[in-house]
Structure formats: C-alpha cells, structure tokens
C-alpha cells in the first residue's frame, strides 16, 4: 500500500510536469539518444559493474571534501543509504531500460534533492564529476580501442543529460508550485471590514491588490454597507505596496459603487511615492475623497457623520461647571 501511494505521488509529479510518453520521446530525440546508444550503454554494463564501487567511493569523497555538500551527508546511515541508491542508479544507467519507470525514478530523485535544498550547482557539479570519472575509466579500459571508449562516453553523456534535464525540471516545477501556493495564500488574505462606529466602516487593505481580490473586496464592502447601513467607509491602503493604474481603477470602481448605494468612501494612507506615481501615470482620483492617513480619515468620517470628539478632561470640567 505504501508502494501504491508512493507510485501515485510519482505519477502525480509526472502529470504535473506534463511528462508523457510523447514528451519523453521528444526529449530523447532532441538529445539524439537512440537505439545505438542503448546498445552502446549495454555493452559497457559489465565494465560498469566493476568500476561502480570505486567510482562511487571517489564520488562521495569529493562531496565530503566540500563544505556545501558535506552538510547533506552528516548521518553515516544516510550516507550508506545514499551510496546504495547511487549504485543502483549507476547500474541502471547501463541496463538499457529508459522507460517510464526510469523517468519516474529520475523525477523522484530530483524532487528529493530539491526538498533537502541541495543547490542546482552542486547537483550539476556532481554529474560533471561523475561523467569525467567514468569517461576516464572507459578510456583506461579500452586503451586499444579509444574509438569505442569515445562512443560509449558519448552515449553516456546523452543519457545523463536526459537525466539532468528531468532533475532540473523537477526543481523548477517545485519552485513554480511554491510560487503558485504563495500567490493563492496572498489572494486568500482576508480583508476584514470593521465597524468602528455606528455607520462607519474601516477596511485596512494589506498586500497586493489584483483583480480577483479587488473584486472580492468590493463585494464585501458593498454587502457590509447594506448590512450595517454604513454611511461612510474608510479604505486604508497603507499596506498596499503597489498602486498602478489597474489597482487605482479597481479602487475607483469600489468608490463609485459605494456611492451608488449612498455611502461615502474615504481613501487613506497614500504614501508620497504612490501619490506621485499616480499623478505621473495620469490617474485621476479627484472624484475620490482622500486623506493622508487613517487618523485624518477617521476625523473626516466623524465630521461627515456629525460626531464631535471631546476629550474626557474637558467634558468633566464642563459638566462640573454645569452642576
């Protein structure tokens, strides 16, 4: 069962990255990785079995001699396990099976490396070391027939570049997924509509305001106006990093819609940069009431609603005078 879910996860990864049989065939065609190469690789399989252990040993020696890569192999047990799977990979490279299962495996390995945070440069460096070392071994083994060694290393290079491509794509796909998730999280950032006084609402807007969110915000504000019978709503955009013509347009629409319902919207928190940028791009906000900060927005709103704020101390002395 565990195997099943694991397989499902790998399949999902393939689907997500759009890697189909056809895509695999295209990648192989682009690398000119054909049947001769498979034959070539299979012909060195016995040899590969022989040099697998010493090459892998040298490989990890190399990894452990660098600070950046050493930290990934602190645990000796882990190191053993990684070595073993590396050997499996090594064998598979010359086994002649470069089917879907092989590709799935490459993607999985790429995903694991991405998850532990191994940088791409180290990943590439590892492949480079590997290619160099194996090529050396091949030329050593076929001293009398360097032609053969060259052919074999060429084929090996093709399959390894196929693998590198897949691994890097996994890295990119994971990052893209992360970006997508973060964008969604941003989008779901709720904007509370707060009632601060009778008939007065405040909307503190934080984060990027893109179309979807702006629309949501407008709907929320209009419904709140209707529900609370608000007369004045303050939209504070102190926390909005970018206000371009699109965002300004969204804000204008919200203000107009609120006005149709009989409520006044006060826009507060326009930073000096944003104010100048809006003027520079020619956005006309003259129809909208704006104030510099939330405090003056509140004061303006209170004025519109007919409130007058009187400090307690003053009032008590006035009350005393009355008594």
């Amino acid at each position, binding site marked *: 069962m565990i195997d099943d879910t694991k397989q499902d996860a790998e399949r999902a990864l393939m689907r997500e990255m759009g890697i189909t049989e056809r895509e695999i065939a295209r990648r192989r065609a682009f690398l000119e990785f054909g049947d001769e190469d498979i034959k070539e690789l299979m012909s060195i399989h016995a040899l590969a079995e022989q040099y697998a252990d010493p090459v892998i040993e040298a490989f990890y020696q190399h990894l452990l001699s660098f600070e950046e890569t050493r930290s990934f192999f602190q645990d000796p047990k882990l190191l053993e396990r990684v070595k073993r799977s590396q050997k499996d990979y090594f064998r598979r490279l010359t086994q002649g099976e470069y089917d879907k299962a092989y590709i799935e495996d490459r993607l999985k390995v790429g995903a694991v490396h991405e998850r532990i945070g191994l940088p791409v440069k180290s990943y590439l460096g590892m492949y480079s070391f590997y290619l160099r070392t194996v090529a050396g071994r091949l030329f050593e083994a076929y001293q009398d027939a360097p032609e053969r060694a060259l052919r074999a290393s060429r084929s090996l290079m093709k399959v390894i570049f196929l693998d590198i491509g897949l691994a890097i794509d996994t890295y990119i796909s994971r990052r893209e997924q992360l970006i997508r998730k973060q964008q969604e999280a941003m989008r779901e950032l709720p904007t509370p509509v707060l009632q601060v006084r009778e008939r007065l609402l405040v909307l503190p807007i934080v984060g990027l305001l893109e179309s979807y969110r702006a629309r949501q915000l*407008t*709907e929320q504000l*209009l*419904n709140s*106006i*209707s529900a609370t*019978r*608000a*007369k004045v709503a303050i939209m504070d955009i102190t926390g909005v990093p970018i206000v371009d013509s699109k965002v300004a347009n969204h804000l204008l*629409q*919200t203000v*107009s*819609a*609120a*006005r*149709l*319902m*009989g*409520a006044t919207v006060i826009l507060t928190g326009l930073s000096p940069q944003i104010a100048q940028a809006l003027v520079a791009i020619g956005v006309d906000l003259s*129809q909208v009431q704006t104030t510099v900060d939330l405090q003056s927005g509140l004061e303006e709103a209170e004025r519109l609603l007919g409130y007058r704020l009187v400090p307690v101390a003053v009032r008590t002395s006035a009350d005393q005078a009355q008594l």
Partner: protein
Amino acid sequence: MKAPILKQGPYLIASLQPELTDTDLLQLQEALVEQVGRFRSRGIILDVTTLDVMDSFATRTLRNIAQAVGLRGAEAVIVGIRPEVAFAMVQLGLDLRLSGVQTTLDLEEALAILDRQHKELGRRG
C-alpha cells in the same frame, strides 16, 4: 403596469418595480415631472430597492427624471441600489450617468437629506 406615486408632505415617493417596462418608466417620468409642479413638491424619492437589474435605459431615465424635476425646483434622491446592482453598474460604466444624482441606502436617509436641504433652502428664502 403603472408605478405608484405617493405624496408624503412636501415630497413625492415613487417605487420602481422589476416588472416596469421602458414605456412605464417614461410614463413615470412624465407623471413625476408634472406632479412636482402640481403639488409644489420640494423633493422626490425614487425607490429602486426591489430592482435586481438596472440597465442603461433605466439609468438614463432616472437621471433624466432627476434633472427635469431639478429644473422645476425639486431635489431627487435615488434609494436602495443593491450591492450587486451597484457593482454591475460600475462594471458597465453606468455609474457615471448617475453622477450628480444623490443616492442613499434607505428611505429614512433620503428623507433626512431632503429635510436638511429643505430647511437650508427655507432659511435662505
């Protein structure tokens, strides 16, 4: 169908129903503009609370009513544009047609506005 017009003190109140056709709307316009003079009304209230759609014709007619009664000395207030209607109007760019026309959330608010303006006018007169 004819939209009913109610007289409430110095004001006229008309309630717009979803069933009103374009012709009905024009009739309402005629009637309001005429009655403002007959009753010497100081304001009219157009209640659109039950409308779930406001097309360009309705919007234009409302604005025309407001301007026409304005010429005959009465203020017009539109009452009860629903959130979804307001949003749709803004998206369609219909809101500009109503700029300059007063809009309020409910009847109470509309009456308060008209009363205030009525008093101010009275003071001035």
